[in-house]
């Protein structure tokens, strides 16, 4: 079965420092991976995706993610965190078993950026 794991419930980082939010995946076949962010009382917002090509994917709001096939990871990164980045982050993988595009989400990681 397709799945993703987010091993950290919460990540704390000081403003201006680099941040990493971890995600590992388990898929059969080629992985299609996504990162979404959820702010309080708002829907999920798409950040970036990896389908094929360069292992470093750049997305919205200065975020990027590194696809690592040997480690089956797709960690989200940002060189310099902002207080406004504080939110809930979800990693997701496309479930290709049926040929359709439903997403399987991780349990989420709460990012807290302190001033």
């Amino acid at each position: 079965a397709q799945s993703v794991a987010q091993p950290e419930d919460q990540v704390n980082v000081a403003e201006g420092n680099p941040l990493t939010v971890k995600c590992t995946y388990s898929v059969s076949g080629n992985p299609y991976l996504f990162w979404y962010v959820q702010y309080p009382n708002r829907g999920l917002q798409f950040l970036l995706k990896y389908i094929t090509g360069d292992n470093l994917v750049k997305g919205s709001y200065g975020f990027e993610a590194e696809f690592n096939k040997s480690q089956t990871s797709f960690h989200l990164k940002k060189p310099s965190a902002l207080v406004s980045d504080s939110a809930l982050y979800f990693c997701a993988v496309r479930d290709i078993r049926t040929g359709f595009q439903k997403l399987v989400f991780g349990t989420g990681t709460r990012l807290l950026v302190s001033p």
Partner: protein
Amino acid sequence: GAGVSQTPSNKVTEKGKYVELRCDPISGHTALYWYRQSLGQGPEFLIYFQGTGAADDSGLPNDRFFAVRPEGSVSTLKIQRTERGDSAVYLCASSLTAAGVSYEQYFGPGTRLTVT
């Protein structure tokens, strides 16, 4: 442009009652998805529409749950005989679709359902 909209934003109902949740997708998006997000969890897939037909309803928990999309645009998720365990945020998403291509899904703000 307009994003995915969902109504109502909040719904409180009594156990055993019937509820309908509405989703209006982004114009031109032929694919529509419903997910359910319980407290402290990631969204879980319920059902996927391609056009008017339900292409994959494998995530619906039981036959109390049903969804329609009669004209290929607006969708309604229907829950009969609601139970307290149905309390969650119900998320709708839409996307473009094409064979062999993974387009991102755009999510609405969700409907928070509370069954008392």
